[in-house]
């Protein structure tokens, strides 16, 4: 935990009695909030509690329905459209906000380009972008186009963009949701560097250990109400969780059931290679949960996308239930009982302009046909089921999916994937942006599915999640399998060793065990 700044320092940005409604629907109720220079102030709360809405108000993106904002000691009306950034209030939004066709350097400097005379100083922008990315220890090419980056790299670009600004307040809305431990650490380094310089940081995360590590104070929201603002020193992860969900949270992870090593192999991958990955081999049995760990861009997603028929392989073999599985498109893999849930919910998972129901049933629309026509009732029933099962919360149920809170979008996507009732399911960052309470539910759902005999692959950057759920863990590094861990070997330290290349697991029989 950082050195606690002097509590007597006046706050740089504060909100008083902020309320917000979207149309008729109230989302925030009379919230007081403030952040001091050099402080990390975390906001936590369940999905849909209003965290993102609060920070949108604190950065001028949304205007409050009532209440006032004070910045640098003066009452202000913040300008809209990110113009507050010029005043020193910089936001990393929960949803990636990058123009897909621009380069990395262009994206970092969008709206405040470096110029020499009337012209862009491309070299300066490229160099500075490179320098900023270097401080984050990522080697993303500043000239790369955004649409060639993985989600995690995009998130790093967003972070680079924010910390490169001359900010007095930096607001980070779940910046670590798609980052692995290592990347998160470099982010925290930067946060500490910034706070040391007197920058105020508002930090939102569902990862409670991060909150404990980074925050000086924590504000808890529940259903749009302010529950408390407490110094971190007075908190434990358990007490935070309790304040958040209003109940005791024990046993985040369900007990691991010993997998039956004799059940049949449902998915078998041998020597698979494709752009970005090579020589991947593993087996997946009924009832097994196989974790995939690794750093950003280590190729976990690429493996899953090849298996699901989303991209073509260049070599190797995949079999499902003993049958060769060269799916040329997703409908074939779905028909074979294999479902893949993307981690890019905004770009590949959900139609942001459509409602909940069409999104939920898009993958399995054929199931909702009655004599060839769509059966609205059956679709509505499916939505009902998914809402109950995954605790999807929308204050305004007819809202476009793009306006749901991030976590609820994720839950909807989970619902969409599970609608296809797959035998094999590959979940890429299944709990991205989901609050602890629901996480627990989802972990139990995953465990129950495995117990039913489904085979599950969990790709996750959250080390605890991989450890807590998996029977076995594949660790990937630079497009290859660095090792496979089993049983008691599955520890944070061991995974990190493989992921960072300190340790190599060579024996092939281990890989396919």
């Amino acid at each position: 935990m950082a050195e606690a700044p002097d509590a007597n320092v006046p706050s740089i940005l504060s909100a008083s009695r902020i309320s917000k409604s979207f149309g008729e629907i109230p989302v925030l109720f009379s919230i007081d909030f403030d952040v001091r220079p050099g402080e990390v102030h975390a906001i936590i709360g369940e999905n849909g509690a209003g965290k993102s809405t609060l920070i949108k108000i604190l950065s001028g993106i949304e205007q409050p329905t009532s209440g006032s904002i004070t910045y640098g000691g003066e009452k202000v009306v913040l300008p809209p459209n990110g113009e507050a950034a010029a005043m020193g209030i910089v936001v990393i939004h929960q949803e990636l906000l990058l123009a897909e066709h621009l380069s990395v350097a262009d994206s970092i400097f969008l709206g405040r380009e470096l110029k020499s005379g009337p012209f862009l100083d491309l070299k300066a922008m490229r160099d500075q972008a490179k320098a900023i990315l270097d401080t984050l220890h990522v080697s993303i090419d500043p000239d790369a186009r955004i649409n060639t980056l993985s989600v995690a790299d995009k998130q790093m670009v967003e972070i680079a963009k924010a910390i490169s600004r001359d900010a007095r307040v930096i607001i980070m809305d779940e910046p670590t949701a798609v980052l692995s431990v290592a990347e998160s650490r470099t982010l925290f380094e930067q946060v500490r560097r910034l706070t040391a310089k007197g920058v105020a940081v508002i930090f939102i995360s569902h990862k409670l250990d991060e909150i404990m590590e980074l925050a000086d104070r924590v504000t808890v929201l529940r259903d749009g109400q302010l529950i408390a603002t407490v110094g971190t020193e007075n908190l434990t992860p358990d007490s935070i969780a309790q304040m958040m969900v209003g109940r005791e949270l024990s046993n985040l992870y369900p007990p691991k059931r010993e997998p039956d090593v004799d059940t049949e192999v449902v998915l078998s991958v041998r020597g698979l290679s494709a752009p970005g990955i090579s020589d991947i081999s593993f087996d997946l049995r009924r009832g097994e949960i196989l974790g995939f760990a690794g750093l950003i861009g280590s190729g976990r997603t690429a493996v899953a996308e090849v298996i699901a028929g989303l991209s073509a392989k260049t070599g190797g073999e995949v079999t499902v239930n003993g049958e060769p599985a060269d799916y040329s498109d997703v409908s074939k893999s779905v028909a074979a009982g294999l479902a893949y849930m993307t981690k890019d919910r905004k770009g590949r998972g959900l139609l942001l302009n459509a409602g909940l129901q069409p999104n939920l049933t898009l993958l399995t629309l054929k199931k909702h046909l009655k004599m060839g026509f769509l059966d609205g009732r059956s679709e509505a029933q499916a939505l009902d089921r998914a809402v109950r099962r995954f605790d999807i919360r929308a204050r305004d149920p007819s809202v476009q999916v793009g306006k749901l809170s991030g976590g609820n979008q994720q839950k909807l996507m989970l619902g969409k994937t599970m609608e296809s009732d797959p035998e094999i399911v590959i979940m890429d960052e299944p709990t991205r942006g989901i609050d602890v309470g629901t996480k627990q539910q989802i972990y139990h759902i995953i465990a129950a599915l495995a117990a039913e005999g489904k085979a599950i692959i969990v790709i996750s950057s959250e080390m605890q999640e991989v450890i807590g759920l998996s029977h076995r863990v594949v660790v990937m590094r630079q497009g290859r399998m660095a090792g496979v861990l089993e049983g008691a070997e599955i520890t944070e330290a061991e995974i990190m060793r493989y992921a960072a290349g300190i340790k190599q697991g060579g024996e092939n029989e281990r890989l396919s065990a």
Partner: protein
Amino acid sequence: MSVSVPDTASKPHKGFRLDLKTAGPLLALILLIILGYSLNPLFLGEGNVTNLLTRSAFIGIIAVGATFVITAGGIDLSVGSMAAFIAGMMIIIMNAAVDSMGASIWTVLLGIGCSLILGIGAGFINGFLTTKGKIEAFIVTLGTMGIYRSLITYFADGGTLSLNRGAREIYRPVYYDSFIGLPYPVWVFIIVALLGWVLMNRTAFGRYCMAIGSNEQVARYSAIKVDRVRTLTYILQGLCVSLATIIYVPRLGSASSATGVLWELEAIAAVIIGGTMLKGGYGRIGGTVIGALILTAIGNILNLTDIISNYLNGAVQGVIIVAAVYLQRGSFRTGRRAKKAE
């Protein structure tokens, strides 16, 4: 306190939004009708209303097809020359049939059958080049537009292809006769519009079109066969062109290089006036029908009066189209938020 999604809550809102969205173009049409009536009460005379409806059938039917293409994120510039080409081929085929076996109902049915095959084939070519050839739809259909226009000119030897008199007499009623007070073309239009509406709003295919137009990646990840659905939209468009041609040919009994000129622009305009977005992702068949009626009514109203110079017809048309769309957008816009929701 989980609120979740009560079944009922989503329904009324949806209906509501649908109403307002369709109300926009409808309002514009009503204003146009009032304008027409005030210029000349005969505008609402039975004969004129029948003419107007029958005429709007061509563009309307084509525009129903265009709604699917545009909803799925494509565009088809070739429909006008495709119509001319199909009309020409129908006439050539029917004339040849009359020569060899005399004029009968079968001649006409043969022509109709060929028209359907040609329409589907032409649509398939557009779809295939766009999806498998991975060429921008704009370029593909600009190309086929030139090709069909040239072919009809070539087959007509620069002149007009005319249907044989005998076949003409048999075919003529398809355009000119009525069934319970409405001419056949209007019935065809009504049926195509209804089927289109059902297809767009009540089948998986319509849902897929919207998904593809709104985010192709999401569609692909959702197990939708993007290329196939997209190709099908072009085939559907070809089919609609063919249907429009089937009721067009008996009207004038001829085809030439001047047939169907600029129909593509009118069809796209009808679709967009109707509230479908050019970028795709949202299709509204009802709006398209109203859009086609608006466009036809504008042309008709310009013929009702000659207070303004004929030279300015295009200007009046332009002003009315822009005003109609402005009205439509304005009428349900409740500030910025509604706009953003687009």
